């Protein structure tokens, strides 16, 4: 396997402090490899966006990171912990190493500035020595890259369609050639045709520029198609992680299986669509043991009492996958 670019180690994120704190992300460890698309799926409130905000320290108050490390491996440099950076270093790290494309395509651009201003102010902040002319040229180049005519440089966000705005955001994300691009439900506000177009373009750009992607969505069907590996989150924890094809064919965790059963397959025989009964857990009052057990059709004795550990399943010999489920208890790593 290729070398890691971003390692999340035991990350914990709370909203609020003290006894009333809500644990939104619990003990998450995840590794993003160079050039890979890692999908992060889960229901609303499963903590996937919080994880993304947490690893760039963008959590809006009252979000606090209560523990863990986010190790970034720069190309040909010493790895360092993003969570330990000073504010100044953090500002330099943001966007230059890890860019984010946010959920709201409609509201991600500042309505009162031209898109040229918003593209170039990144350059002004990160590469102050660059000349005005080069900055403009670079911004135009990025627009061309995402398929927007460079003469829209002087347009204001409200003069662009939703799809174009999201493309501008993608272009903006790539302007400093970051190693990691986090996509937080980048296409939720767009129609299906536009979704495909934008994602297809993104994958193509990734092949050309070689960045890694963390792709967050609740649309597992998109992930199966576009990502290399998928991690499924539930109640702030990762419950299963495996190569995309493996999850699609043979999901081990009943929750992953439930998610997969809830959308229709494009090919093959028709099958009954099934939802997952119940509703996502209340983060303030998590069920004991495996947090999925109240909704799990296969729950048995250990589920309500003991939290299953994420690890490679002992009963199956499939490499590169791990699951947190008592049906497939993890291999004891001594």
């Amino acid at each position: 396997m290729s070398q890691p670019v971003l390692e999340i180690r035991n990350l914990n994120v709370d909203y609020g402090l003290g006894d009333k704190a809500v644990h939104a992300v619990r003990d998450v460890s995840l590794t993003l490899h160079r050039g890979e698309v890692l999908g992060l799926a889960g229901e609303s409130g499963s903590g996937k966006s919080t994880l993304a905000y947490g690893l760039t320290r963008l959590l809006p108050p009252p979000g606090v990171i209560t523990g863990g490390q986010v190790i970034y491996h720069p190309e040909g440099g010493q790895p360092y912990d993003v969570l330990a950076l000073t504010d100044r270093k953090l500002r330099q790290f943001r966007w230059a190493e890890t860019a984010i494309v946010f959920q709201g395509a409609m509201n991600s651009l500042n309505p009162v500035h031209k898109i040229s201003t918003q593209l170039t102010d990144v350059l002004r902040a990160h590469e102050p020595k660059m000349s005005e002319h080069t900055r403009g040229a670079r911004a135009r180049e990025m627009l061309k890259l995402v398929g927007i005519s460079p003469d829209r440089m002087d347009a204001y966000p409200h003069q662009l369609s939703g799809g174009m705005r999201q493309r501008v955001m993608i272009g903006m994300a790539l302007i400093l050639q970051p190693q990691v691009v986090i996509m937080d439900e980048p296409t939720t506000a767009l129609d299906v045709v536009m979704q495909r177009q934008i994602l297809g373009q993104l994958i193509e750009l990734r092949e050309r520029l070689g960045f890694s992607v963390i792709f967050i969505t609740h649309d597992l069907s998109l992930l199966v198609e576009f990502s290399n590996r998928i991690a499924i989150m539930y109640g702030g924890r990762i419950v299963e992680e495996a190569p995309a094809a493996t999850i699609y064919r043979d999901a081990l965790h009943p929750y992953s299986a439930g998610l997969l059963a809830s959308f229709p397959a494009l090919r093959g025989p028709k099958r009954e669509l099934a939802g997952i009964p119940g509703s996502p857990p209340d983060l303030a009052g998590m069920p004991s043991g495996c947090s999925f057990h109240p909704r799990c059709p296969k729950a048995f004795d250990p589920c309500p009492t003991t939290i299953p550990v994420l690890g490679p399943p002992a009963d199956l010999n499939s490499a590169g996958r791990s699951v947190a489920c008592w049906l497939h208890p993890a291999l004891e790593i001594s």
Partner: protein
Amino acid sequence: MRYFLQRIAFYLFTAWAAITLNFFIPRLVPGDPVQSLIAKYRGQLSSDAIQSLYVLFGLDKQESLWQQYLDYWKQIFQGDLGLSFTFFPAPVSQVISQALPWTVMLVGITTIISFMLGTGLGVLAGWRRGSWADGLLPVTTFFSSVPYFWLGIIAIYLLAGPDSFFPSSGGFDSGLVPAWDQYFIPSAIQHSLLPALTILISSVSGWILSMRNMMVTVASEDYITVAHAKGLSERRVAVSYAARNALLPNVSGFALSLGFIVGGTLLVEIVFSYPGLGFTLLQALGAKDYPLMQGIFLVITISVLVANLLADVAYLLLDPRTRKEG
């Protein structure tokens, strides 16, 4: 541009309506200016004098209302607003042009300072919620909730007096003649300090509060998070992203408050006997000086309209979304 012309047309129409109302209202009031003057001089006027007064006010000709209306417009365009009774025989336009600069200088400058100070503090308080700037809010809100005349009287009582630096009334030392010289200007500034301070104290909290609230609202917008994620400096995010957007509603508020500078300072000028337009209006009211009131109302109306127009223009400049065409 079409939008702009539409606005101009709208304001012209409003101005016409206001000026027309201004023509009719005094004519609906029983009596006429000469009657009021006769009353003022308690019958000491001879019938000849009364007759000449009628001629002077143009009331001798038995003109139709329509003809009077046309004459009224003609007069307005010549800047002739009639004669004042209170300052008889000074023309209204002269009375107003003497009073207006005082009001505009005192309240105009104070309003601008108050807006800038309040907006600045509001940006700070909204951006760093829970810091010392937030602590200012209850204090300034307390002062703005105090009735203005009471604040002014307390200020005079505590700070002004024969031995104090602050004069308690007037716009300049009574011994001086208004002129742009080294005696008059310092005296005028000295006289304006206390009223300016009280206006500032009572009005700044509104700006702080509205700006702070807008900042808080804007701070949770997605583009602010994006700006942070882009690694822009805190200052750039606060000013160019947050404050720039939060400012918009405040700017229109500011333009509107410019319109009320001329009319809204009655209390200030009464409390401090300041020789501005509000004080003049009070005198006109006391003397039933209809031409003067009419003239002042006209000035107030026009200034409110001009301020509205300014607000529209400012919005066009500041918010690209209000421009119809690209």
